[in-house]
């Protein structure tokens, strides 16, 4: 009997953990500082004179959090990313729903791209918008690519139909 209860507790625990992350609503961001250049991940470890101090691991604090993905979606429209990248399909700017990224597709690389900006028109948002909002936008961009759990990713916004979830399917070529 005790083994059965232990396994059921284990099942309940892991059910608990997965959905706790998706459902958390910590409205108080921390830290609230602006993202400065030093934070971003370097493209390569080669440095004149060798590494001085180990590079701070930049991890996405909002991975698979439903609330922060929807905040990222709002900020994606408020800071007018939609102006250049449309809803992931790309207009002036490159599309954001793709496998090959010019400057790296890992969360740290996308964070670095947003903080520093990139040639050919990507502005540097580093000292403009707070760091936690950049991470929310990074999480939303990855949810466009399906790299966030589907239970945390909204299936559609309340806007017209050109949203990433459908583009992703069309990019996959499934629907008619």
């Amino acid at each position, binding site marked *: 009997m005790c083994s059965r209860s232990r396994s059921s507790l284990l099942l309940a625990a892991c059910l608990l953990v997965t959905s706790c992350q998706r459902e958390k609503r910590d409205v*108080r961001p921390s830290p*609230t500082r602006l993202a400065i250049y030093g934070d971003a991940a370097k493209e390569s470890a080669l440095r004149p004179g060798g590494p001085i101090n180990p590079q701070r691991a930049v991890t996405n604090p909002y991975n698979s959090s439903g609330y922060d993905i929807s905040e990222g979606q709002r900020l994606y429209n408020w800071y007018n990313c939609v102006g250049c990248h449309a809803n992931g399909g790309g207009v002036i700017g490159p599309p954001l729903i793709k496998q090959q990224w010019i400057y790296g597709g890992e969360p740290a690389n996308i964070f670095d791209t947003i903080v520093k900006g990139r040639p050919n028109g990507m502005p540097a948002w580093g000292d403009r918008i*707070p760091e936690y909002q950049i991470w929310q936008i990074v999480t939303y961009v990855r949810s466009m690519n399906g790299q966030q759990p589907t239970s945390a990713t909204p299936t559609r916004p*309340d806007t017209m139909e050109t949203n990433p979830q459908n583009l992703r399917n069309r990019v996959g070529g499934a629907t008619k």
Partner: protein
Amino acid sequence: MNWVGRAAKLALLAALAAAVAFGATDVQSAVNPIGPQSGKIANLWWFFFWLLGAIYIVVMIAALWTLTRPNRGFGQEPLEHTHQLSPETDRRTSRVVAGATITTIVILFVLIVASVGTGKGLSELGEQKNSLTIQVMGIQWWWQVMYQTSDSSIAVTTANEIHIPVGRPVQLRLLSNDVIHSFWVPNLHGKTDLIPSRVNTQWIQADKPGVYRGQCAEFCGLQHAHMIIYVVAESPDKFKAWYDRQLQPAAAPSDPVMQRGQQVFMNNACVYCHQIRGTDAAGQNGPDLTHFGSRLGIAANTVPNTPGNLGGWIADPQSTKPGNHMATIALNSADMHPLINYLESLK
């Protein structure tokens, strides 16, 4: 059966206490009408209250009376054996019950006529000629107020506060672009929902100058409780002065502290969401701050508009109104002070 009398006295006392408590503070009260609309509704309310209150007392007396009558029935032996009414009792009681039902139907008919009549009266108060048209948009947890000119173009944009001239009918065009809100200033009129994909209209009019508080009445998310709007009714000339001031763009600051404050405003994320006419800040996501200094409250009137509250709000919006959509920007204290002075100077 003395407790019956005591219970009845207790109920009457409670009703009287309730009537007294109504009028106590009437900051946002439906029974303290200011305009003709809320006046009609308040009259209808008191008519319903006294008529239905009387009916309630009568029914309660009838119900409690059944306990005080030891033997009953007209010429019938005790019920324990026959469980059957004598035809005499049966006929009398059915007459009483039929009478009560007919009275109920008549009273309900009177109530229907009164309420539909008031409804028609309310709709006639609208559709008047020299009315002022204001567009009110509910956005998650604040109100955007846009004054329309005669050719329905937007002249003045402000937030969380509606100034109206006393005695003049005002048409509110209510719309929303996110969730369903509900515009409700009890002293002026009932509530009307703001629904995406739909434009609802409501007519209000204030007969006495004053500041009338209203609140969003349809649950709209985390900060539904702090979506407060003030309707400031003032004399027509004061309103005209306010309106002309609102038309002016913000004057360029002369004082060096103000200039430093404006520079801090321009350099940070404020410009992405807020607009100050007369400067190149033109963000449309947040409230228009051109005449921020003249407003009564901050963050949809969650806190009064004082420099101290403004400082607390800018430093950490999530402590004043947890869950709202204002960004938390880390400003060092050297920048904060001039920014507050600059914003408060935008009268």
